[in-house]
């Protein structure tokens, strides 16, 4: 059971000395309670406090950084089983696999795509994260060479799917300082892998048949000094993956089996159905997921799904406020005002585009609230609309002075008219009806 802020406060030195970087001990306690604080930051903690707090305030799933530089990413540090309980914090790293039996240009082509591919959605740049190099040749030297090809063309985080210690060593020789993931240690060889990866600061993926065995193996590894671990469940069926991954997440967050408190590694290329495995990896707690080179449709869909699932459910995604064009709007094109809740924006935009009426969308910043909630909460009002019209120069874009507002914003129509001097038309409540609405109601 996680400690509450005041329980933590009681254990703090209560000096309010600010050395932790927070203005009061209470603030520090709140941070610890939400798993976001670091007990090391308070220099005055006594041993008792440290031991109590250490166990209960560090994230139940260990935070692990993979790779270095711009494309490094963090996984773990998760607190919940369902995203609606709070949120999922760190989206899984998607690692695209290459084989050491491929030629240099083949490898480079895949690596370059991972390096350069960006999907921009809702103001976020979504990317694939890294490369997994597979030892298919069974030849450490060839494996090392393949790693060097990948390293040669991009500073991407990598997984060394080495299979053997010798290959792992050869791979680490090429990229050892860049915090790669070494895959994978088992009960039989964990000592060697631990010492190998510890030396270079690499992350170690470990593989065991069941959650029980996994818990044992991870304990052995930490005892051997390696605690940058990922738990690999890859070898199992889709259903087994869901079950095991759920067990691991639950035991971690309830802290009942702390040795399972590590991020999950999933090789989604093993099951027959790669797309399905990938979806499961994203939904069910995968933290590092290995996939084959994706098709373009899959690439987009998987990045979008990951963005959706890792959106903070309590913080709706927001659009940047502004004036957006749909089609080629002219001086007499309709202007539709709506809020910056992304779902509202995109739904409306979709219907506008398919209605083929060129128009302007005036997006007002309601902190990401939907129209209904924004109106109710007073987050959408006439002055904001007036300011937005001014700020985004709507009066220069169109020659008329008529604004269409969402159906749910109708309580504001009069005040908007007064404040802006524009004529206000109340549009439909359901975006799906906008096409028909414009057809019948719109006259500039």
């Amino acid at each position, binding site marked *: 059971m996680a400690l509450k802020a005041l329980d933590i406060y009681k254990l703090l030195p209560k000096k309010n000395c600010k050395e932790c970087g927070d203005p009061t001990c209470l603030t520090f306690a709140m941070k610890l309670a939400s798993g976001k604080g670091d007990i090391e930051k308070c220099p005055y903690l006594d041993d008792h406090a440290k031991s109590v707090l250490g166990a209960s305030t560090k994230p139940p799933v260990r935070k692990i950084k993979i790779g270095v530089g711009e494309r490094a990413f963090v996984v773990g540090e998760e607190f919940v089983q369902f995203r609606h309980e709070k949120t999922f914090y760190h989206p899984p790293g998607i690692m695209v696999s290459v084989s050491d039996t491929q030629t240099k240009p083949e490898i480079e082509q895949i690596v370059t795509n991972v390096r350069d591919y960006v999907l921009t959605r809702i103001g976020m740049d979504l990317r694939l994260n890294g490369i997994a190099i597979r030892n298919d040749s069974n030849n450490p030297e060839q494996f090392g060479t393949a790693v060097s090809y990948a390293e040669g063309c991009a500073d991407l985080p990598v997984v060394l799917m080495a299979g053997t210690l010798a290959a792992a060593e050869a791979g680490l020789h090429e990229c050892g300082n860049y915090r790669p993931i070494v895959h994978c240690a088992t009960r039989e060889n964990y000592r060697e892998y631990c010492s190998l990866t510890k030396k270079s600061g690499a992350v170690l993926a470990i593989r065991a048949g069941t959650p029980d065995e996994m818990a044992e193996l991870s304990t052995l590894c930490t005892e051997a000094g390696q605690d940058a671990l990922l738990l690999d469940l890859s070898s199992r069926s889709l259903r087994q993956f869901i079950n095991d991954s759920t067990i691991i997440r639950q*035991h971690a967050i309830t802290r009942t089996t702390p040795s399972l408190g590590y991020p999950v590694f999933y090789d989604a290329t093993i099951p027959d159905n790669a*797309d399905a495995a990938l979806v*499961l990896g994203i939904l069910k707690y995968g933290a590092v997921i290995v996939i084959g080179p994706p098709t373009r449709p899959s690439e987009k*869909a998987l990045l979008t799904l990951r963005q959706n699932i890792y959106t903070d459910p309590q913080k709706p995604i927001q659009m940047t406020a502004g004036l957006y064009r749909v089609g080629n709007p002219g001086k007499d094109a309709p202007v539709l005002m709506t809020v910056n809740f992304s779902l509202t924006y995109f739904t409306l935009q979709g219907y506008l585009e398919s209605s083929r009426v060129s128009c302007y969308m005036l997006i007002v910043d309601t902190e990401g609230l939907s129209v209904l909630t924004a109106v109710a909460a007073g987050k959408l009002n006439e002055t904001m609309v007036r300011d937005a019209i001014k700020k985004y120069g709507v009066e220069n874009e169109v020659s008329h002075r008529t604004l269409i507002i969402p159906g749910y914003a109708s309580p504001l129509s009069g005040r908007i008219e007064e404040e802006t001097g524009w004529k206000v038309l109340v549009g439909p409540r359901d975006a799906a009806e906008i096409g028909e609405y414009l057809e019948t109601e719109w006259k500039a």
Partner: protein
Amino acid sequence: MTLQTQNIWNGRIGTVTIGADRAHGGTRTLQYTLGGEQDLAAVGPGATQQRPLIAAEICDDPGIWSPIVNTFMGDTVNDTAGWAGTMESEYHPDIVRLHLTSTRKRNFKDFSGIPETVSGVLKSTGLPLIIEGSNDPSIDSEVYQKCGEASSGERVLLGTAEAGRYRSIAAAAMAYNHCIIAQSPIDINLAKQLNILLKEIGVPYDRILIDPYTGALGYGFEYSYSVMERIRYAALKGDQDLAMTMISAAPDSLNIREVREARDDETDRTAATWEFYTAFSAVIAGASIVCVRHPLAIPLLKSAIDSIWPHSAGREA
């Protein structure tokens, strides 16, 4: 020691039967009983898990249907019954979902056309049906009466009841012994409220499926995903008013930019992939029926579902 999942459940999902075969007074070649689960989707012992079903969506007026599907299917879309038959024989969905899009036309009056369309589809496919009636309250009464009567005995799933308008659909379900879809706008409490309203006018819980409304992937899907998880969670925790099976369809999927603007040679694949990602995620969140429009999404889903639920547990031959 064997580590287990730790959720403690004290409820189970209620069952619902869709379709009626000859032994049960209908003409379907098979019927399904869904529900009965006692854990999260795909978690726990396999015996309590039903295989989720795939519904292929078609319509009787392709004018407002996705141009991608229309192009892919060609002329078939102008022959509703033929379309249903083609879906069954070529793509093998579990259910056909017929949208009576013709009723969306302004001043729709052709009520007598509805029974014709419905019986045509019933003849051309042996699969259980979902029938989506009007979405205009002023014609609901007549449309649903016709839908219900025309499919009498077949235990179809009628859609879609909402909080403001559920009486006609409920009436049709009760009068002609069908099941209904109860849709609420991504809100667990409204979902529950609608179920209670339906119960109050006499629709038994074993005839209701919850449709929590599914936003397209990238366009609000995360809300739908979570609300499905929450409904399933509440049901397993013992909330009887939410313990129905769920149906998920993302009606806007093929209308979003990513799909519309895909390269010409990738349009179909993109459409199918997008539907697959959405529908399969919905299955994992707890949906028992997932609906898609692009035929190519069906084999993708089938193979994914088969690999998790190899037994066709939902079927009664």
